[in-house]
């Protein structure tokens, strides 16, 4: 059904949108774009910038903040993602079954062979991104989503493929457990949950450095990859 252009609804909507845009402009034009606000003594960012390389050993400041200083928050974030995935599973199982439409045209040989050749490379790239989370842009969430996008490609090309939900759930919970377990190691040794107890290990800038941060990011990568794959497979519908 084509959506009609509805003047009664659009004019107030446009006015409200312009009002909000004007408010944002008015509020943020005073902030000062591109000014060095972090150099003030005692600001949180300044504390992170000047100390985090020594304290965590991570070359990437964003990773140091996300996984070390706010690691507990990240654990909550991963939990939110897990809840979304579980909630989707619950909703899908309660839905009425979709109408069985006519079978789509099967993919050609070129596409299937190409997918089979490219998929391992995509998964390798995803692993590269989450293994190098403490050295370069990227990390567990991004790498996990790259892996899931590769499996989404596989799901599109081979529609008959049943996602192995049991294995996905197993790897997801094992990864989540190891995240929490690393946190408890910190609690046991350093007295703080998720304390980076071996931060001195390795030289900054090398692959083996930054203590527990790469381990946590690997766990997050596996967990996010498994969750996203399950989420996409459920979205496909049918037999979830």
């Amino acid at each position, binding site marked *: 059904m084509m959506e009609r252009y509805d003047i009664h609804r659009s004019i107030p909507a446009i006015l409200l949108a312009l009002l909000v845009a004007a408010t944002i402009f008015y509020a943020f034009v005073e902030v000062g774009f591109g000014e060095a606000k972090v150099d003030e003594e005692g600001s949180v960012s300044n504390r992170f910038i000047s100390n985090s390389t020594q304290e965590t050993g991570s070359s990437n400041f964003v990773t140091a903040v996300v996984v070390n200083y706010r690691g507990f928050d990240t654990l909550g974030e991963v939990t939110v993602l897990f809840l979304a995935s579980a909630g989707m599973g619950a909703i899908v199982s309660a839905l009425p079954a979709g109408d069985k439409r006519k079978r789509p045209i099967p993919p*050609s040989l070129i*596409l299937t062979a*190409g997918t089979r*050749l*490219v998929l391992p490379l995509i998964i390798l790239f995803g692993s590269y991104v989450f293994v190098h989370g403490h050295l370069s842009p990227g990390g567990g969430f991004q790498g996990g989503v790259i892996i899931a996008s590769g499996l989404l490609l596989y799901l599109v090309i081979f529609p008959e493929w049943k996602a192995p939900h049991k294995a996905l759930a197993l790897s997801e919970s094992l990864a989540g457990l190891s995240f929490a377990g690393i946190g408890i190691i910190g609690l046991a040794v350093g007295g703080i949950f998720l304390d980076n107890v071996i931060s001195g290990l390795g030289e900054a800038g090398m692959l083996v450095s930054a203590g527990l941060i790469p381990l946590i990011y690997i766990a997050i990568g596996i967990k996010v990859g498994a969750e996203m794959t399950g989420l996409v497979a459920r979205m496909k519908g049918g037999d979830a």
Partner: protein
Amino acid sequence: MIGIQTIIGMAFISIGLLFQFLGALGLVRLPDVYNRLQAATKSITMGAISIAIGVGVIDLSLLPKALLVVIFLMLTNPLSSHAIARAAYNSGVPLWKGSVVDRYGPALKKLQKRRGRS
């Protein structure tokens, strides 16, 4: 002082941009989906590859990554254009009226008949 490396890299990037422009022009000028895809795929693959190599030449530490991008583009870009062309044909987009021959339509019909029977 601009080094010779930068000049070569910039030359590669300029050639790539030229090819990209020609591909976009072909997308506008050529008559039907299949002819347009021909121009778009070839020019845009070549243009992107040329730009990647140019970046790799300017900063040599990026060259291996640029080559990996080149390999990936050469592997996946033809695949996507093939998928678009096939989907267009299967959903009934006609060939340009000046086309001389179409051997695919009859073969596809035969295949569908066979699939429907089995």
